[in-house]
Every structure is written in C-alpha cells, then in structure tokens.
C-alpha cells in the first residue's frame, strides 16, 4: 500500500526532468535580460558622470564645437564640445542610407518582382557575401582604394565624410536590401492580380501598388540600415581621418562618435574627465540605437499590412 502511495505522490523522473529543463531555459532568458539591463545601467552611469561629477554643462557638451578635454577655455570650463562628432556621425549615416536606398530598392524589386526564382537564387548569395565581409576588410579596401581615389580627384588627404559614406554605403546595402525584399514579398498576391486586372503594366503595379503598400517595411529597412551605419566603428575610423573638427566639406578629415571612441578609450585614465566624456559619447550612441529601435516599433505598429 505504502509503495503505491509513494509512487503516486512523488514526482516521476520525467516530471523532474521537465522542471529541470524548464528552469534552465528560464535561467538562460533571465541571463540575457540581466545582461541588457547591465549594459544600459553601466553605460548610462558612466556616461552621466561627466555631468554629475565634472559638472559639465550638458548643452555645452552637445552644442560646443571645441574638443580638447585636457584643457579649459577662457571661462574655466573644459573644452568638451561633441558637436563636430555628432554632426559627422549623422552626415555619414544619412548620406550612406540615401545612396544605398535606390540600389537596395532596385535589388529588392528585381528579386521579388522581376527575376523570379533564378535571379533570386543568384542574388541571395551576393547579399550574403556582402554581409559576410568583415568591417575591417571594408575599412582596409576603403583605405587602399577609395581614399587614394578621392585624393586624386578632389585633392586634399582623401580622408573624410565622402570616403566614410562610400564605405558605409556598401556595408548597409545588404541590410536594407534583405529587409526590403521581405516587405515586398509580404504584399499579398491579390494586390498584384487586382492591379494587373485593371490593366496596369509591371512598373505601374510596382510603383503605384506594391511600393506604396510596402512603404512602412521599406522605411523600417532604411532605419535598420542607418542604425548599422551609425554604430559602425572600425571601417569608418580607418577612412574618416580622425580629426575632431567641424566638417567643412565632404573631403576634409573629420571624426565620428564611434571613431573617437575606438581611438581614445585606451589613451585616457579611468575616472578622469577626458575618460568620462568618452563614455558620454558612448551614451549618445546607446540612446541613438534605442531611438532607432523605438522608431522601427512605431512604424511597425502603424503600418502593418492588413489582410
């Protein structure tokens, strides 16, 4: 009797395994969440130290144009104007996305509307290869091909926003393309049939129906591309010239947030002002990345295709 009772009341091996497995999975997902919280906390707490410990004016940081954290200006405030880097970062990002979008759209339309299976089979590996090339290799090619070319055509050093834009354009192209393809494919077939039944030819259908239906998806793709361009560090660092100056032209040396971070973190002492402002730059990067994310969510909610 006791034995049967025991058997009924204790958990079986399978149940114990079940609970154990479930616990492990919960632990794993908990770890990832803890990690993200940790990243946000650490970068934020370091990033605001410039303003809380060193009492730097936040406006002076965002809008100042003199970057020289080691010294002070006439009023005794440290020269930590990050505007040149912010402007450069935004210009390379926007320019790269602007150049890449037509190419990416053409690729996407070609793959989903024109080429059929064979063309897709040919272009899919092209995109995968472009994604697969590491950023340092892009930087190296930029340094040894693009920069000399710009030097030859425009004079100067060749380093600058233009070189950064060209390198980033190739790097964000696959991101924008593959996401645009997804959104073009998500347009229901019935839309194409309806358009064809009205007598529209292929381009009319693409332009008037498909692109408009897929517009939110394409916008999302472009934003993801911009997020990638904004956060890219080494490839840009190698071709941008690394001079913290307000960019005067597309071919004068400049410096982005990421390039400043990669070159300077190792040369400053933890806890000092020159180091703290670097973390503030990282904080800007973090905020922008969160902002791009929010934007994508917002568009996704507004513009999902209703079937």
């Amino acid at each position, binding site marked *: 009797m006791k034995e049967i009772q025991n058997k009924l009341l204790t958990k079986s091996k399978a149940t114990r395994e079940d609970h154990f497995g479930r616990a492990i999975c919960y632990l794993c997902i908990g770890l990832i969440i803890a990690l993200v919280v940790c990243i946000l906390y650490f970068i934020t707490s370091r990033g605001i130290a410039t303003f809380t410990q060193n009492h730097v004016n936040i406006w002076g940081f965002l809008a100042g144009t003199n970057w020289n954290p080691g010294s002070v200006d006439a009023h005794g405030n440290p020269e930590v104007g990050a505007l040149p880097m912010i402007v450069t970062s935004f210009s390379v990002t926007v320019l790269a996305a602007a150049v890449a979008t037509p190419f990416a759209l053409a690729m996407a339309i070609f793959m989903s509307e024109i080429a059929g299976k064979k063309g897709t089979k040919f272009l899919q590996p092209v995109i995968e*290869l472009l994604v697969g090339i590491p950023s340092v290799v892009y930087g190296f090619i930029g340094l040894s091909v693009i920069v000399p070319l710009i030097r030859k055509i425009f004079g100067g050093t060749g380093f600058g926003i233009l070189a950064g834009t060209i390198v980033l354009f190739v790097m964000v192209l696959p991101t924008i393309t593959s996401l645009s393809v997804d959104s073009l494919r998500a347009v229901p077939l019935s839309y194409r049939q309806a358009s064809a039944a009205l007598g529209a030819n292929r381009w009319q259908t693409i332009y008037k129906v498909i692109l408009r239906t897929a517009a939110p998806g394409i916008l999302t793709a472009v934003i993801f591309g911009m997020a990638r361009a904004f956060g890219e560090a080494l490839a840009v660092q190698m071709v941008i010239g690394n001079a913290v100056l307000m960019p005067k032209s597309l071919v004068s040396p400049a410096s982005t947030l990421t390039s400043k971070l990669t070159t300077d973190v190792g040369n400053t002492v933890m806890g000092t002002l020159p180091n703290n402002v670097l973390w503030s730059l990282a904080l800007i990067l*973090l905020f922008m990345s969160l902002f791009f994310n929010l934007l994508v969510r917002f568009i996704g909610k507004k513009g999902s295709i209703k079937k």
Partner: protein
Amino acid sequence: MNPKRINNIATAVIYGLVGIVVLILLFLIGYILFNGVPDISWKFLTTPAQAFSAGGGIRDQLFNSLYLLVLTLLISFPIALGSGIYLAEYAPDNWFTNLIRTTIEVLSSLPSVVVGLFGYLFLVIQLHLSFSILSGAIALTFFNLPLLTRSIEESLNSVSDLQKQAGMSLGLSDWRTITRIILPVGLPGILTGVILSAGRVFGEAAALIYTAGQSAPIVNYANWNIFDPSSFLNPMRPAETLAVHIWKVNTESVTPDAHLISSASSAVLIIVILIFNLSARFIGNWLYKKMTATR
C-alpha cells in the same frame, strides 16, 4: 511618354542598379583575393608577427581568432539554445514575452563598439579579468547571443506542430518532446545558424579591441598546461585576433609591409568566412536530407 516606355526605362534602370551592385561585390572579392592570395604562403601563416620589420606572419593572430571563436561558441551556444527553446516552446503570448523580444532586439542593434566598451568596463575593470581571451570571448558572446537566439528560435518554430502533437500523444513529457523530437528536427537549421554566427564572430574586431587586447605575446605551442601564462591554451593571456591585427597594422603600427600583411590577412579572413558560409549551406542541407525523408 507612354506607360510602356516608362515601364521599359524603369526596368532598364533596375537592371542597371542591380548590375552595379553585382560589380561592386565582384570588385571587392576580386580585389581582396588578387591582392592577398599571392602573398599567402605557408611561411606567412606559420611565423609570428613582426612589429618593426617586414616579413612578419600571422601565426598567433590566426590561432587566437580560432581559439576565441571556439570559446565564444562554447559559452554562447548553451545560453542561446536555452533562450531559443524558451521563446519557441514555453513563452506565453503576453506583454512579458513582448518585452523579452524587445530586449533581445535592443541587444542585437547595439553598436558592437558599445558592446566592446561595456565588456571593457565590466569584465576588464570590474571583474579584473584584464585584457584576455576570456574577456574577449564573453564580450563576443554578448554580441553573438541575440542573433544566435533568434536563429535557433526560428528553426525550432519551423518544426511542424504535428511533430509536437505526436510526441504529446505518446505520453512524453514536454521536456522529452523538446529534446528528443523537436531539437533533432530543428538541428539542421540550428547548425546553419551557428556556423553563420561563427563567420560573424570570426570577422568581428570592434568588440575585441578593448577586451581581448591588441597585443599577441609569444606563446609556446608545446605547452598544454592551460594555467601556464606561456601556454597557447591559457585563456587569461591577451590575444590580438586576425581582424584586430588588420585594423592595427593599418592605423597604429609602424610595420613597413603593412599593406602586404593586411591584404594577405584580409584574404585569409575572407576565405575562412567563405568556407563558413558555404559549409553552413552544405551541412544544413545534407543533415536535413539525412535526418528526414526528403529527397
């Protein structure tokens, strides 16, 4: 202009743009391989790097890259697998799951330099791991986790519900159904995801500069004692990887043959990544055919 002509022009423009992109890719691959491959020799792959004179190789950097890759996968795969199973099998459809997905998305969209800096702050400084392979592997795990988790979740989700129902109807527990039925069916997809992520990890540099360090001390390849500082297996030594090496010789170093070293190293990097990509496709297909009745 009549619509027909516009249609033709638009089509031609699209063909032109696609052609340009294909040409860019051909140029990139061609440039790297034509410039780099002639300089790759057995000697280049097996001699240590030189800081101030020409003729250095990439022995240590290549080994460091591979070692770091293995360690990263060892750390990140179990965590990603657990999270992937959670998201695909356990997660209820509610706000909390939504929050988790957003969190993972945020992590995957963080710039790798920010992830690297966090690694520097947390691992190198707070946990006193110093510039080491271990710090690098953990930082790369941060960078690798969201993508790997998502690809595992997707391949588990693509397993047909019928398989799960069959397991349930046989009286198997949830966990057994997952480990004995769903995981084997999803394995080809998971493996493809792992190999593709390996390619990404292999080429990553920004997250490593301040975690695995930028120096490659001479190590002894005959010393198998993992705790010995001179051993090649010691995870606590600083380790410059191949990608970081390319960056470094191009920006900071004074090596006279920097161009040669970086073009040859780039070629090695690209070839390894091409192998990863091709094998991901091949092994995935092969395993799928082998494990299912597909012909």
